[in-house]
């Protein structure tokens, strides 16, 4: 039999002015099941809470209703007090008689009547409430970072610094990402590799970080605190344990192939490391070009390898790792120029992407920093940069802004002018967006001190007239057509979501937007959380951003991971869905509507292990308690604790006239 206490708060005059609190308390005392009722000036005060605690003990209460302010204000307070007094906290409910009653009504009789109704509704609910326990989830103290660009490197380092082991998975054969290919970085013009490679080395030397390069995520199962990831270690044909990275193999390899790292501007071998500072500094064999693997000839690398590390029979291997949290830092890709034939992309060798330009001016690039245009090696005397190529162009490509182009174009004009002091450089732009620390100053330096000529307008066409490239565009400030003859055109093409990101998102159960960028759980308040608990996001996987943003997000994600993994088990609210397995017929409605992938089918077996039938099964670790599953179930075999049908019906029922 229920023994319920009702506590009506005056909130000074906030409630008492519009509600006859003593009458409310008195009438509430007559509700069947209520054994104690009282009104008090400030329930939330220490004496008020003591009153509650004492009443729970003295009257042996099974439930309590505090009629006061909004539960959003003090539910935690009173539930904690109830818990301290030995009552299950979920057996306490609040009737909101301040925000939703005394403050919105003037008439005291009406306010009092409504108050009594609200109390009665909560009393009836409490009668049906069940004691709930917080959900405890054990956690695996290990993290997985997917993507070894600068964001992934930073996240791995920060997590490891917190004492948690990390597996860093990278699709390419070296970590470093796009940043490793950059020449200098804005707005400081410090050398990209000079600041990145020490971090890469740090990663490789951290005993808590395991790098799995040339590997991809095959499958992810489990849930927050308890993920099991299967990682495909792609066949490398080089035993990374035996290999010392001496370099003999790639020096002797006779096959030359266009280098992806050099953006197609340089060559590599069929057995190669993508760039000299690669981490791990272990080569891989490109099976499509290796003579041994394609034609069963050559085999030189095996012959010259001093440690017998070459294995032509290597195959993909699957490795399972158990982790408690995942950080996704899969970065971006750059649109290739071939998408823009109207700008000469794919037609003229001297129309290049900004990333290619980085390699062209980089001291470690294919020309060792000597600026030569790709077609004939000539020093370009006039260069035209075109911004917003593919970005901010909803009719043809992407509607979004790629965010970093304004800055790197300004940087590249400087890099160009530093190489070619009397060269001409023009920039076609729509707007100049330079809203970072020292960014605006940087752009102005490019324009005012470094001689870049900015033309506001779009380019209509790039074509070749004789030996010259001609850029035709509009100057919308002077309202005139512009035609510039030049030697090199650099297109600041849009940043795009990388290949395979949708498949990865599906494996992780996280969502992505129409552009393929991963979606944050909340654009403002949960910018680095995904919709799946325990999966965090950082860097350009979310949308275009620059290095400082990516790095700070990575650190943020690492902090989230460390917070999550700091305890042996996680505690969460006991308001979760539960299944009545006796009546569930596994129609999958709940599974289909659950936004958090918290419900799965489970087999019910007999003693011999034969499957008798299937039922829905809620993973309380993933369930967030929204209750969308409940109305989707026609036989009501799934319900939400704390908001069961019986509880809500009791509230409705309490409205029937006396």
């Amino acid at each position, binding site marked *: 039999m229920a023994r319920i206490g009702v506590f009506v708060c005056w909130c000074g005059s906030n409630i008492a002015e519009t509600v006859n609190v003593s009458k409310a308390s008195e009438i509430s005392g007559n509700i069947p099941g209520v054994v104690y009722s009282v009104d008090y000036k400030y329930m939330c005060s220490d004496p008020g809470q003591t009153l509650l605690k004492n009443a729970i003990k003295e009257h042996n209460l099974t439930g309590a209703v505090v009629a006061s302010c909004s539960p959003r204000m003090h539910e935690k307070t009173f539930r904690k007090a109830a818990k301290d007094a030995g009552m299950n906290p979920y057996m306490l409910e609040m009737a909101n008689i301040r925000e939703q009653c005394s403050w919105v009504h003037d008439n005291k009789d009406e306010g009092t009547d409504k108050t009594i109704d609200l109390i009665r509704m909560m009393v009836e609910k409490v009668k049906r409430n069940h004691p709930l326990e917080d959900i405890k989830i054990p956690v695996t103290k290990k993290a997985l970072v997917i993507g070894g660009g600068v964001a992934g490197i930073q996240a791995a380092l920060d997590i490891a610094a917190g004492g948690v082991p990390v597996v860093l998975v990278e699709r390419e054969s070296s970590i470093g990402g796009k940043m490793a290919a950059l020449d200098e970085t804005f707005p400081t013009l410090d050398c990209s590799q000079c600041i990145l490679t020490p971090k890469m080395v740090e990663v490789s030397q951290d005993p808590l970080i395991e790098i799995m390069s040339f590997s991809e995520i095959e499958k992810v199962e489990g849930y927050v605190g308890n993920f099991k990831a299967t990682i495909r270690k792609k066949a490398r044909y080089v035993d990374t344990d035996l290999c010392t990275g001496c370099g003999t193999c790639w020096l002797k390899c006779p096959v030359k192939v266009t280098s992806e790292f050099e953006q197609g501007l340089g060559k590599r071998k069929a057995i190669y490391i993508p760039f000299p500072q690669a981490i791990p500094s272990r080569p891989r064999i490109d099976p499509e070009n290796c003579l041994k693997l394609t034609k069963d000839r050559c085999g030189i690398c095996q012959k010259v390898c001093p440690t017998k590390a070459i294995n032509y029979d290597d195959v993909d291997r699957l490795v399972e790792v158990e982790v408690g949290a995942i950080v996704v830092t899969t970065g971006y890709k750059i649109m290739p120029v071939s998408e823009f034939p109207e700008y000469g992309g794919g037609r003229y060798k001297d129309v290049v992407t900004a990333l290619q330009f980085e390699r062209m001016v980089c001291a470690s690039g294919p020309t060792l920093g000597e600026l030569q245009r790709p077609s004939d090696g000539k020093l370009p005397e006039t260069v035209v940069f075109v911004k917003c190529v593919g970005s901010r162009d909803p009719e043809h490509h992407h509607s979004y802004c790629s965010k970093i182009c304004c800055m790197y174009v300004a940087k590249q004009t400087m890099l160009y002018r530093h190489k070619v002091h009397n060269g001409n450089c023009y920039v076609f732009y729509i707007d100049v967006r330079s809203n970072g620390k020292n960014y605006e100053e940087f752009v102005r330096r490019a324009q005012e001190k470094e001689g870049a000529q900015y033309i506001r307008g779009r380019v209509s066409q790039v074509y070749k007239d004789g030996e010259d490239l001609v850029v035709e565009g509009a100057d919308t400030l002077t309202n005139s057509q512009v035609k510039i003859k030049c030697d090199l055109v650099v297109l600041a093409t849009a940043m795009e979501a990388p290949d395979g990101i949708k498949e990865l998102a599906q494996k992780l159960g996280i969502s992505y937007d129409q552009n393929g960028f991963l979606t944050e759980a909340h654009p403002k308040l949960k910018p680095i959380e995904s919709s799946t608990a325990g999966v965090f996001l950082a860097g350009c996987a979310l949308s275009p951003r620059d290095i400082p943003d990516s790095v700070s997000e990575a650190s943020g994600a690492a902090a989230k991971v460390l917070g999550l993994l700091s305890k042996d088990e996680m505690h969460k609210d006991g308001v979760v869905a539960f299944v009545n397995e006796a009546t569930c017929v596994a129609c999958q409605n709940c599974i*289909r*509507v659950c936004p958090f992938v918290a419900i799965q089918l489970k087999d019910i077996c007999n003693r011999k292990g034969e499957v008798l039938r*299937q039922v829905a099964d809620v993973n309380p670790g993933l369930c967030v308690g929204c209750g969308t599953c409940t109305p989707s179930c026609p*036989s009501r075999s799934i319900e939400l604790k704390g908001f069961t049908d019986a509880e809500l019906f009791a509230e409705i029922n309490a409205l029937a006239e006396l």
Partner: protein
Amino acid sequence: MKELIAKAKELLMNKEVDLLIGYQSAGEKKAKPLLIKNPDDADKLVFNEYCLSNLVTYLNRPDIKALSKVAVVAKGCDIRAIVVLLSENQLVREKIFIIGMTCDHVMSPDGTEENIKCSYCKVRNPHLADVVIGAPIDERISKETVVRHEDIEEFNKKTKEEKWNFWKEELSQCIRCYACRQVCPLCYCERCIVDFNNPQWIDTRSNPRGNFAWNIVRALHLSGRCIDCGECERVCPANIPLMLLNRSLQEEAKDKFDWEAGFDPEAQPPLTTFRKEDDEEFIR
């Protein structure tokens, strides 16, 4: 008919199926279900325009579900129920053998005219069947055609008050025999919502209040799922025009979600999914 009997015999003789569900004659202009395990009984099988029953409903019966494979004689309209059951994980495709019958039309329950549902049938040639028996029949309307139910249109000419009085009168006659539920191929819950008592969702008394709640919840639970077989209305001993409700919700599903149940087992049922641009003109 010969082909059907031969196929049935073959299936039962070769033990390809444990049970075959078909139709037998029940007198002049009448047919009723026939459940047979013995190949000799296959001679009783008939198929004609009086074969109204949607035999798919038997596939939900626990004793029949327990069998390893069952053959069912089904018209295109009946197969739509199989599609829904497949999409809702209630049947295992490999465990049923669908003998699809081409069917131009069946008769109305009283046997006097063409059944109303046949005038807008889109599956005269059954889909999804393991074997199709009968000559191909010209579909009278295409799959893309949006069906407007004349009875709904007519009904919607009534005022609010007329509608209310109509249903009050009709539903007061419901005796709560649950024939509508039991015959429905899509009512397969282990425990029906009406059999709940904590909380008591639906008043079990066959008073107008209980009858309203029952018929509301029934229509609602079939919304986006009803495949228009009309069995509930046919078996209702009180002759309540239940399909008026079901058809209007079919129309709503078509209009608002571009959905017709029972054609694609892979598609997401409309009430378990959404589109961001769904209608919300009615939401303030």
